[in-house]
C-alpha cells in the first residue's frame, strides 16, 4: 500500500527545494494557484489534478520549487482548500509537514455573496471576519451579511 501511494506521488516529479501543497480538492487547484499568485511564477512549478487519493478520492497537488510561503499567506488557501497539507522540501527530503489553518480574517480574497453589498459595486477591498472556522462562515465587515461555505467565491 505504502509503495503504491509513493508511486502515485511520483507521478509528479520530486522537487529539490521548495513547498509541496498536497491534498487540495481537485476543483480548487487553479484557485489556489491564483490566490498564491503563482500564475506568473518564474521557477519550476508542477501542477496535477484528479490524482487518485485514498483519503479524498481525487486530489490535486502543487509543487513549487524554491518557494517558502509565509504562514499568513499560505493560510489564505484554507478558505478554498481546508484539507490541504504543506510539505517543506529541502534536498529532496521532507523537513516539515503541517496542515493549513483557517485564518481569523480574509482580506480581499473572497467575494461577498450579497449582490447589494457596496464591495460588489465600488472599488473596495473586501474584508471578512471568520466567525465559524469549522463550518466556514464569514461575516462581511461592510454589509454584515454572512457568507457560508457553499457561497464562497474567489474575488
Amino acid at each position, binding site marked *: 500500500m505504502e509503495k503504491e501511494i509513493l508511486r502515485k506521488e511520483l507521478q509528479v516529479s520530486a522537487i529539490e527545494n521548495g513547498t509541496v501543497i498536497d491534498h487540495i480538492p481537485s476543483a480548487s487547484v487553479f484557485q489556489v494557484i491564483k490566490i498564491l499568485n503563482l500564475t506568473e511564477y518564474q521557477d519550476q512549478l508542477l501542477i496535477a489534478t484528479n490524482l487518485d487519493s485514498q483519503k479524498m478520492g481525487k486530489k490535486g497537488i502543487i509543487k513549487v520549487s524554491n518557494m517558502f510561503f509565509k504562514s499568513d499567506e499560505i493560510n489564505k488557501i484554507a478558505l478554498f482548500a481546508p484539507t490541504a497539507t504543506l510539505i517543506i522540501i529541502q534536498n529532496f527530503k521532507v523537513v516539515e509537514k503541517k496542515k493549513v489553518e483557517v485564518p481569523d480574517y480574509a482580506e480581499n480574497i473572497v467575494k*461577498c455573496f*450579497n449582490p*447589494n*453589498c*457596496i*464591495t460588489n*459595486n*465600488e*472599488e*473596495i477591498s473586501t474584508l471578512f471576519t471568520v466567525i465559524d472556522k469549522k463550518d466556514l462562515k464569514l461575516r*462581511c*465587515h*461592510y*454589509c*454584515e*451579511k*454572512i457568507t457560508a461555505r457553499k457561497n464562497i467565491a474567489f474575488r
Partner: protein
Amino acid sequence: MKNKSLVSINDFTREEHIRILELAGAFEKRPKQRILEDYVVATLFFEPSTRTRLSFESAATRLGARVIGFTDSSSSSVTKGESLRDTILTVSNYCDIIVMRHPREGSARFASEVATVPVINAGDGANQHPTQTLLDLYSIRKTQGSLDNLNVAFVGDLKYGRTVHSLVQALCNYNTTFHLVSPLELKLPSAVKMSIKERNLEYTQSTDLQEVISKVDILYMTRIQKERFSDPLDYEKVKNAYVLRNSMLDTAKPNLKILHPLPRVNEITTDVDNNPKAYYFTQALNGVFVRQALLASILGVVE
C-alpha cells in the same frame, strides 16, 4: 462619543446608548438650543427618505446648525458616474458631520472609513438604521420607565424588516422576553434569533397576534409587503391576520404601548389612533430628540 461614527447599533456600548437616551430626554425638555451655530451638517440621501431626512434636518436646524446636502442621487454627481469614495472625500471638506442614506448595504461603513468627518448612518440598504433603533429604545424607555425585563412583541414582517433586526439585537442587552408573531414565510432570520439564544433569553414564536396582546408591554407592529410573497395566494391568506384593531386591545395591560416605524398602510386600523396606547406618532417625534442628542454628542458640544 466625540468624533465617533455611528454605522451599526453595535458600534455604541450599552452605556453609550443610555447616555444618548438621557441626552435626548434633555433635548425633549428644551428642543431649541443654538449650540451648533458654528457647524455644518451634510445630509446625503442617495435614495429618498422623507421622514428620516426631515427628522435629521429638523434636529440640526433646531440646534442652530446649517444643513447642506441632496435629497436623492439624481441631484448629485452620482449621475455623472462619481464613485461613493470621491463624493464622500469631497463632501468631507464642506461639513463637520455627514448623515448618509444609501441603497447599498455596507455603504455607511465604507463612508465612515473614507470620510475625514464622522458619519451617521441613516440607513444602508437592508442592513442597519441605528438612529431608528435608538429612537425605538427611547420610546420604550420613556413609556415603560426602564428598558429592563420587558415583554416585547414583534409583529408582521420579521424576515426583511431591518428595524426589527436591529431592535431585537439592542434589546438583547436588557433581559427582554421576546414574542415573535409572523406568518411562517416571514419568520425572524436565524442569524438574528441567534443573538436571543446566545443570551439565553426567553422567546415565543407564533402566528397568532391576539394571543400575545395580553402578555406584552410593547407591541411593535410592522407592515407586511405583498411583494415579499412568491405566491400571491399566500399573501391573501395571511394579510388580515396581522392587522391590529381597537377591539383587540381590550385584554391588554394598562402600560401597553403600540409602536410602528411608519409608514403605516393598513396594519393598524385608524380607530386605534385615538387609543392612549397608540404611540407611533409620538415615537416619530422622539426621533428628533434622539438625533439632536447624536449630533450634539458626536460633534463634541455636549458630553
